[in-house]
């Protein structure tokens, strides 16, 4: 095999490309675009499932528009859940409580009454009820991101 100086075999040229840090985002993007294109071709075969677990009707006239979930305030609302037996408070705004929260809610009138008590709760209210662990995970992501930003901002140098 005749090689020119500094070019190497095909394999080493591929190796050189993938070893460049700056190419990384580009490589990933190419992969992503390729998959998305395949996805675009399969799009007609994707059918919307009418029987949604978390149905949502959009009432554009409501003043609460994107967040409108129907029902009357301070009353029970019709909410569907995958496993209703795990959500004994289903239909109230706080459909699912962790065991600790349920203990607190049962024993004091001050806590566990609304999930809009912290930022993650709002996100969860926007999405759907009944998914307590998501609330925890989402809040944690926000918290971690905030902690990184704060640390970078506050470090001394």
């Amino acid at each position: 095999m005749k090689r020119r100086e500094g070019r190497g075999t095909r394999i080493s040229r591929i190796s050189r490309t993938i070893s460049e840090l700056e190419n990384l985002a580009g490589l990933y993007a190419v992969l992503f675009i390729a998959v998305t294109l395949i996805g675009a071709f399969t799009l007609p075969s994707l059918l919307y499932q009418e029987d949604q677990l978390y149905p949502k009707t959009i009432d554009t006239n409501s003043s609460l528009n994107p967040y409108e979930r129907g029902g009357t305030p301070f009353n029970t609302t019709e909410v569907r859940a995958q496993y209703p037996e795990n959500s004994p408070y289903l239909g109230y705004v706080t459909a699912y409580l962790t065991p600790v929260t349920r203990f607190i809610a049962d024993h004091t009138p001050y806590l566990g009454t609304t999930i809009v008590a912290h930022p993650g709760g709002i996100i969860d209210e926007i999405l759907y009820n009944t998914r307590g662990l998501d609330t925890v995970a989402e809040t944690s992501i926000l918290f971690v991101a905030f902690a990184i930003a704060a640390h970078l901002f506050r470090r001394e140098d």
Partner: protein
Amino acid sequence: MFELPVTTIEGPEIFVIEFGDIVNYFTVYTAALFTFALLFTILVIISRPERQVDIAFGGDAFYTKDVTPAQMKFQRFMALACGLATLGAMMSGDVFNFTLFTSMVGITNIGIVAAYKYKHVLNAAFQYGIVAMIATVPLFGSAAIILATTGTLSMWELFGSTIAVPLIAKIFLVLGVMGEGMAPFYVAKAEITRAPGAPYVLMIHVSSLLLFLRVVEIVISM
């Protein structure tokens, strides 16, 4: 009450933790991964960083890099968060919840090395950050496609033979995890791990490999 529809891949579930609609589970497989993640999370808590020795080549000179206590505290906190996110992802029984934990792993991985002042490490972390951000699109996109086409997110339903998960959603899920966990070509991760603070930096690798192992299980089962 809950029984995994497919037991030929990783055996039957050992036990189930119910959080409302999110029903987490342990099989022998995920329990093994969980234990491993737990082991290394504990390691992060109890061990102290090493002091990297750098040799000035061509002479006898060498010096050690020290990790300052303030930096160590932050790194340990981030590594711990990363460990917890990994633990969550290992036991999750819900696709959306899994993607959430995955993206949290992506963020904490950058957080672990973000406080360093070494230029090449920061450079790699920056590239990684870009990829992790792009990766959230396929990651959450896959959860969205799964919900739209099947009407549910619970793995207990999705693993059953009655529900067909579209191929594109599966590929998106793998692609998203690859981006968050930095699986494809590993350049950025390799450069990131040049940072001192071995137990914490190791967590980057632990989390992304475990995520990858978990997503393989999910994708084959779906």
